[in-house]
């Protein structure tokens, strides 16, 4: 057999294997699937933010042509459990979250009835004929008002809108603030955002009465967790539930959940004996898919005369919305953990309160708690610079955790794995000619132009994560099967929905086993085909899922060496496996190719002693720690002094996510992430009126960034591998989002500093900037 040399794939900028089918419309999304006899489900949703349900009259709807069933919350009692929340918080109030509300509705979009009909139009028509009587109640909209005595209660039986308190103390903040030369006070709001995945949520449930088997197709990031929760929620054995995540068109955390529609479709498919499909329309997505952020922070921070952080106290209010979804109360605890950022912060006190309001539940949204932390500490850095008249780069430099301090333990007891924050900042200042930019700014200001330069140095927590830190396991599983024809099938427990792991995992396999990238198939998102896994979120796909793959490949390589040694009549430890060649060390003409090993493994006519037939391995990887990617971003903004319109002229990043498998995919993740972070800074905002109506409930009013609004990104990379996993890779899915929001706001505030501006609330819309420059009447 001929042995061939395959070019190194790890580190190569190869195009994504998944793209041809995606961009030619040849892939299958949940809503594309049509099953024989399939019915359509449409939900009747509350138009009120807060109201008591006085009656639900389904008789007219039930009698309509094509209507098969109309179900209300009362019909589900005893057969469908409430929706789950996963947490390890003490004393968390867990009011029931029913798939269909029975007593009150608690946000606009809260579901009260499900209509099932032979097609979606008829279901929609009938849904309009379900008559729900509401007794309107005062809505709880403002998060601070929600915490006050006498506020209306979202959940009457809980006696308070505060779902939990999460206090944290390290060191002595009182003393630190007392001894500080300067104490700064900031009030920072991370506005509510609405994740808008290209593909709306969709679910199909099919129940096989013969086998008692439930199959659920869903737009989910977590098919395995959903499988377990669906089994619990419907009282089925877990092995009788199969969850399939077909092609999923983006999630950004909004599909990292267990939703009412999944329980409802499954229950109705079981009771009606026909498959049931539900697909959100875009308006419904705005109301009834989890929102993100909505966190208010009041900060007191003490520094010495040189700008060194001495201590910080944060009062944090997190708007949970009306109910807990899967991770609702957990997300802001990540903010608490990451408050120190890249800096030495000896004394930290945080008091987090999670607060119910009559709004859509919040949950993970790209970054999930860390953008809030980075925004806070990076705004603090710029405030210190402004107060002490120091350059913002210098303030950061004075506070950085030093490169030789790693692994570094923070005040929040995290152990940062590896890093070199100062070098990242130095590289950034060098590639942007920071001194030159500051000179240019001076010249432009002299000409009456408004130009700002923003910095942000971030570290984030990902590769989530050690199981001890999570409510439901933080490991990942992977099976590698080397097939008889030389193809390699990888069954991974992660569930990519845009992240490109079909390519990056194939690159790893190609290098480790010596097969072409095209000979590798990455299977995912079907709990019967890939029986174990956790899912894709928290930038964990490569750092945890890839690590499990790496362990499985180690086993395959070891077993292949055993076969090669047997075939070559040599010792196993003398075999070198390079490319697809397994040769005897020092005797390169004595070798076998991988295909010879495959033949021996499956024909099994002459097995090495003690070796089983076949060439496949399954491994679970339990990460010993999180990973902590980091970087430094800079942007340049020009502001039209007459209109307040900001234009991002440059955006430069130096990012370090450890070892990189495919630089093009890393760039792509950064591009998308930075765009989303810029969007929080400049465009996106979920606005509710005082009655709890979502005013920005469509793409006509909720401003997603368009390509033309965004600059070209200049991306530079550093590589500081992590010791946490065998790949040395950290994760890059969220880093761009985390680093960019404060970078842009810092640039805008810098631009406006000649006008005495120290802060500007997000999103920095032109009118706000215009007012900050002193135009218009003060509000």
């Amino acid at each position, binding site marked *: 057999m001929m042995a061939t040399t395959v070019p190194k794939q790890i580190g190569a900028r190869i195009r994504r294997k998944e793209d041809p089918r995606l961009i030619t419309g040849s892939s299958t999304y949940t809503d594309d699937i049509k099953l024989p006899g399939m019915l359509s489900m449409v939900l009747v949703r509350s138009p009120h933010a807060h109201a008591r349900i006085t009656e639900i009259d389904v008789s007219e709807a039930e009698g309509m042509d094509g209507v098969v069933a109309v179900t209300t919350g009362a019909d589900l009692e005893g057969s469908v459990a409430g929706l789950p929340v996963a947490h390890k918080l003490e004393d968390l109030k867990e009011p029931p979250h029913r798939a269909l509300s029975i007593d009150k509705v608690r946000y606009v979009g809260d579901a009260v009835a499900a209509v099932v009909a032979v097609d979606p139009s008829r279901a929609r028509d009938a849904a309009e004929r379900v008559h729900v009587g509401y007794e309107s109640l005062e809505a709880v909209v403002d998060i601070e008002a929600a915490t006050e005595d006498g506020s209306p209660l979202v959940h009457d039986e809980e006696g308070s809108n505060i779902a939990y308190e999460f206090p944290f103390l390290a060191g002595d903040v009182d003393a630190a603030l007392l001894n500080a030369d300067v104490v700064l006070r900031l009030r920072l709001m991370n506005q509510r955002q609405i994740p808008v995945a290209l593909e709306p949520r969709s679910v199909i449930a099919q129940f096989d009465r013969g086998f008692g088997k439930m199959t659920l197709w869903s737009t989910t990031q977590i098919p395995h967790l959903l499988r377990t929760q669906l089994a619990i929620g419907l009282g089925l054995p877990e092995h009788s539930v199969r969850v399939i995540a077909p092609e999923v068109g983006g999630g950004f955390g909004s599909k990292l959940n267990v939703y009412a529609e999944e329980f409802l479709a499954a229950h109705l498919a079981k009771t009606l004996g026909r498959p049931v499909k539900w697909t959100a329309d875009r308006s419904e997505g705005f109301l009834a898919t989890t929102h993100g952020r909505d966190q208010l922070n009041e900060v007191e921070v003490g520094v010495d005369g040189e700008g060194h952080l001495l201590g910080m106290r944060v009062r944090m209010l997190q708007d949970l919305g009306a109910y807990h979804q899967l991770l609702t109360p957990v997300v802001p605890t990540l903010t608490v953990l990451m408050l120190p950022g890249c800096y030495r912060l000896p004394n930290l006190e945080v008091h987090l309160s999670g607060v119910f309001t009559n709004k859509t539940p919040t949950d993970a949204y790209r970054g999930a708690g860390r953008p809030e932390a980075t925004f806070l500490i990076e705004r603090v850095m710029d405030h210190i610079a402004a107060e002490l008249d120091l350059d913002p780069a210098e303030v950061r430099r004075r506070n950085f955790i030093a490169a030789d301090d790693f692994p570094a333990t923070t005040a929040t007891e995290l152990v940062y794995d590896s890093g070199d924050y100062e070098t990242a900042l130095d590289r950034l200042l060098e590639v942007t000619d920071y001194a030159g930019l500051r000179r240019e700014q001076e010249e432009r200001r002299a000409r009456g132009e408004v130009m700002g330069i923003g910095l942000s140095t971030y570290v984030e927590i990902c590769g989530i994560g050690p199981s001890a830190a999570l409510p439901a396991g933080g490991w990942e599983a992977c099976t590698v099967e080397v097939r008889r024809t030389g193809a390699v099938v990888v069954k991974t427990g992660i569930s990519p929905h845009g992240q490109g792991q079909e390519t990056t995992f194939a690159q790893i396999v190609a290098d480790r086993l010596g097969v072409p990238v095209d000979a590798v198939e990455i299977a995912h998102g079907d709990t019967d085909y890939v029986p174990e896994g956790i899912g894709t979120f928290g930038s964990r796909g490569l750092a945890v899922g890839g690590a499990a793959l790496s362990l499985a490949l180690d086993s395959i390589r070891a077993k292949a060496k055993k076969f090669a040694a047997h075939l070559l009549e040599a010792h196993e430890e003398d075999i070198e496996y390079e490319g697809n060649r397994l040769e005897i060390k020092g005797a390169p003409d004595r070798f076998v190719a991988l295909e010879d090993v495959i033949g021996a493994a499956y024909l099994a006519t002459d097995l090495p002693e003690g070796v089983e037939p076949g060439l496949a391995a399954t491994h679970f990887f339990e990460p010993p720690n999180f990973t902590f990617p980091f970087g430094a971003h800079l942007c340049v903004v020009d502001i039209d002094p007459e209109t307040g319109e900001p234009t991002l002229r440059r955006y430069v990043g130096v990012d370090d996510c450890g070892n990189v498998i495919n630089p093009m995919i890393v760039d792509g993740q950064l591009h998308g992430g930075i765009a989303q972070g810029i969007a929080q800074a400049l465009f996106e905002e979920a606005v509710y009126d005082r009655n709890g109506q979502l005013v920005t409930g469509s793409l006509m009013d909720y401003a997603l960034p368009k390509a033309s609004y965004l600059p070209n990104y200049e991306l530079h990379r550093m590589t500081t591998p992590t010791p946490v996993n065998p790949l040395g890779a950290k994760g890059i899915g969220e880093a761009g989002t985390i680093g960019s929001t404060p970078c842009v706001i810092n640039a805008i505030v810098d631009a406006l500093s000649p006008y005495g501006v120290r802060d500007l609330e997000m999103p920095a819309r*032109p009118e706000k900037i215009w007012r900050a420059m002193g135009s218009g009447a003060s509000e």
Partner: protein
Amino acid sequence: MLPAEFDYAAPESLDEALALLTGGGNVRILAGGQSLLPTLKLRLDRPDLVVDLRKISELSYVREENGEIAIGALTTYADLVASDLIGSGVGRCLAEAAASVGDLQVRNLGTIGGSLSHADPAADIPAAALALDCALVARSEEGDRTIAVDDFFHGLWTTALLPSEMLREIRFRKANGGGAYEKLRQAASGFALVGAAAVMQMDGDTIAGARVALTGVASSPFRLHALEERLSGESFGEELVREVCDEAGEAIENPLSDVHASAEYRVAMAGVTARRAILRAAG
């Protein structure tokens, strides 16, 4: 996003289409569908009949006739942008307005007649039509009726068109001069937070005529008559334009205020965009 049930017709000719308009019930005309389809899908409108004009190809044209530019009502924004006949001179305000609409997909489908008939208070095309002093030719079974653009817009989504009529053609004089359209975009929709269209006719340094219209600021697009009068006959100068535009906001009655911008900001930006449009139109 599924509309309520409606009847649908796709007539082969304009006459057939006009006959359907008078058949009774709530009839909606589907041209490019960029406003109508979302309205139907959100069930904000529940017509009995939708008359789709897709088969009526004779209403898509831009041509010069007797010193006028004539534009078929079904001409798309993209076709307006591509037309040499309106890309320069006074017509440039229309080309720029069309180029600023939505995105490429919208511009490939949306039509000039649809935009004018829909009369969205923040649409771009109506401001350009006002600045160009367009004659709007409406057709019914009775024949043509020409409506001056100044008489066309009656308020939010309301025009001078009768239920039996549809726009057939839009005409404007091919005068000497220049046109421009300036707009601050509402970031989500791309519609005008404030849009200003200007047509300036110059006689040497003297302003022979000025027509300036705003959109996005009030319930209908409207002309800045006082500003036009103050400019007419004056010798052109940036200072004059600035002074006149700084006061332009005073003429705005009931300015819009919403989640995207306050009335105060819209009024202030009306002056800025008007000035920028005038300076470019005259330049």
